[in-house]
């Protein structure tokens, strides 16, 4: 037993009464719903889809991001954050997706980073500026590509992480969850095979991406892509077209993938340059028409299959 040092001892003796505290050990209960369903909050549509498909009616999955915003860059307000805090499970995508989590106070318990199992396979985006100011020294705000689910094999790993989290919280339904996970894995494997076939024709030919969100898709199917920063609902200015023309000289792409349907004018001008526009929606948020995430992915595959 260690000997007590006199200085803190005296301080402690002096504050012995002042420091005394009442203990009211009445920890609040976990936030399962009144009907006993597990309260699961998610940060993206793929995770909502996985949790709902695996959890079935044992869970209540909540994805609070409004349908008209990109959940990757959305920030919940304080009220929504309080709801996230009260959830039994918070399924995060990881890889820097939904960066609001870095600035939010969330419970560690119940927080599941569904991409932690393949942290070594995340793609770092090059070109983040390094800067230096003040005594902190040189640093950069390096970013990681976050649309991990566009590689269906990584999506399957995320689905398994979701299932594991549900099983941990509700071990009595583990078999049920496992059975549904099996179905989901089969669907994802079928999607993967379909996309592999659809992209086989592209091969190593140069292609373009309207935004740098296809990194995992590009890697999975060994595509040769370059990313622009073009918005589907905005017509690029002359400088952007000039940049594209310069890029096409070095990278003669005949196909560009869009996150959403581009403006007809943009599509026409691209066609005039011999570049065909195809919509490949990453599906980070809910589809406006209520399509499920897997339906959207299969629709993407169908559009790619239609490319001659």
């Amino acid at each position, binding site marked *: *037993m*260690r000997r*007590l*040092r006199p200085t*803190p*001892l005296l*301080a*402690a*003796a002096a*504050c*012995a*009464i*002042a*420091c*005394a*505290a*009442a*203990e*009211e*050990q*009445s*920890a*609040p209960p976990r936030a399962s719903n009144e009907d006993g369903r597990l309260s699961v909050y998610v940060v993206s549509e793929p995770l909502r889809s996985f949790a709902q498909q695996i959890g079935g009616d044992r869970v209540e999955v909540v994805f609070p991001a409004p349908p008209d915003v990109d959940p990757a860059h959305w*920030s919940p307000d*304080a009220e929504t*954050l*309080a709801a996230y*805090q009260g959830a039994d499970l918070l399924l995060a995508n990881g890889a820097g997706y939904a*960066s609001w989590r*870095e*600035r*939010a*106070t*969330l*419970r*560690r*318990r119940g927080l599941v980073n569904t991409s932690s199992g393949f942290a070594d396979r995340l793609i770092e985006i090059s*070109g*983040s*500026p*390094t*800067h*230096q*100011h*003040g*005594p*902190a*020294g*040189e*640093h*950069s*705000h390096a970013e990681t590509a976050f649309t991990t689910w566009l590689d269906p094999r990584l999506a399957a790993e995320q689905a398994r992480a979701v299932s594991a989290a549900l099983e941990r919280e509700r071990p009595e339904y583990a078999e049920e969850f496992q059975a549904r996970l099996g179905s989901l894995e089969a669907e994802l494997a079928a999607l993967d095979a379909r996309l592999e076939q659809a992209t086989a024709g592209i091969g190593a030919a140069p292609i373009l991406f309207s935004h740098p969100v296809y990194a995992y898709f590009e890697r999975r199917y060994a595509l040769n892509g370059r990313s622009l920063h073009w918005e589907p609902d905005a017509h690029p200015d002359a400088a952007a077209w000039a940049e594209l023309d310069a890029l096409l000289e070095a990278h003669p792409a005949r196909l560009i993938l869009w996150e959403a349907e581009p403006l007809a004018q943009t599509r026409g001008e691209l066609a005039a340059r011999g570049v065909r526009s195809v919509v490949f929606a990453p599906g980070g948020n809910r589809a406006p028409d209520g399509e499920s995430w897997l339906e959207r992915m299969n629709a993407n595959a169908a559009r790619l299959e239609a490319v001659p």
Partner: protein
Amino acid sequence: MSGPLYLAWRYLARHPIKTAILVASIALIAFLPAGLDSLVDQSAARLTARADSTPLLVGAKGSALDLVLSGLYFESDPPTPVSWSALERVAESGLAEPIPLHLGFRARGHPIVGTSLEYFDFRGLSVAAGRLMAMLGECVVGAGVARELGVSTGDSLLSSPESVFDLAGVYPLRMRVAGILAPSYGPDDRAVFVDVKTAWVIAGLGHGHQDLRSPEAEAAVLSREGERVVANAAVVEYNEITEQNAASFHFHGDRSGHPLSAVIAVPRDEKARVLLMGRFEGGDETVQVVRPAGVMDELLDTVLTVRSYVVAAMRSVAVATLATAALVFMLSLRLRQREVETLVKIGAARGSIAVLLASEVVFVLAAAALVASVLTLAVRHFGDAAIRALLLT
């Protein structure tokens, strides 16, 4: 009432000051050891209750008592920090739930405790007004802080600079009060709670500033070489986190190296507790795991030894007081010699006179015993409330 008893009563009533002094001195000397015992027991119980309810504390190797006093009561200087990786080790062991504690900063004299939401569950703290912190830069204040500083939800609280002369040091951060805790009559009442990430912002490990690629920041840029930008001190750093600038806040360096003062580890069960303690044993280990109850028992053993000396001294004083009281009675008897002779002359029996004098002593002793009992009972019943009131003010 029989004659001698009536005469004894009348005598005491005739000399109220002398009687009151005798009763008070005997009552006090009987009450003090018992009352002190009771108060110390109640205080010790409160002190150990917090330690007993904190299963394990993880911190840098060094004084276990300093670690416990800091980690449990937010008193004394913060201990040598450990890195966030210590918390991750606890979490990854699967043996215990870790709760981070970052100490060292103050807001208007009150300790700023950087922690996680699990702390409030663990301590059973509830919010009396507002809500728990949800965003970087928000704080939740204890009931005592709210009362003393007169702050309410929506107000701001500025963290104190580490030193007024440290011009290049940590910038103060304006924190928004998101909620006020219900009184818990302990150290939590006097603390300001923030997310541990907010504590790191105060420590300068994270900050928000102008986007160096934006035209507004051009004046602060010294050089650009490809993706490398060097800015001077003119770059605007934010000292308040708002909805508008929150997205610009970021942390530098590897999270696992960020500092914590201590980690509360809540093991699954007794076996997990022992296993976890074993994981942190070893000569080259820089982290220690202590059982706060054991450390406080050690401290209280010493405090209780001091108490036994005080009680022994009081007992000596009690003997002296009782001897003095006996002397007072004997001197009083001598002064009343003529009164006794008069009683004999008017026919009072010697036995009745002895009963009369003895009754006076018994009345005084009984009154003193009654007063001492009332005081002791009052301390036993109201001591706890008195300590709570003392702690909250």
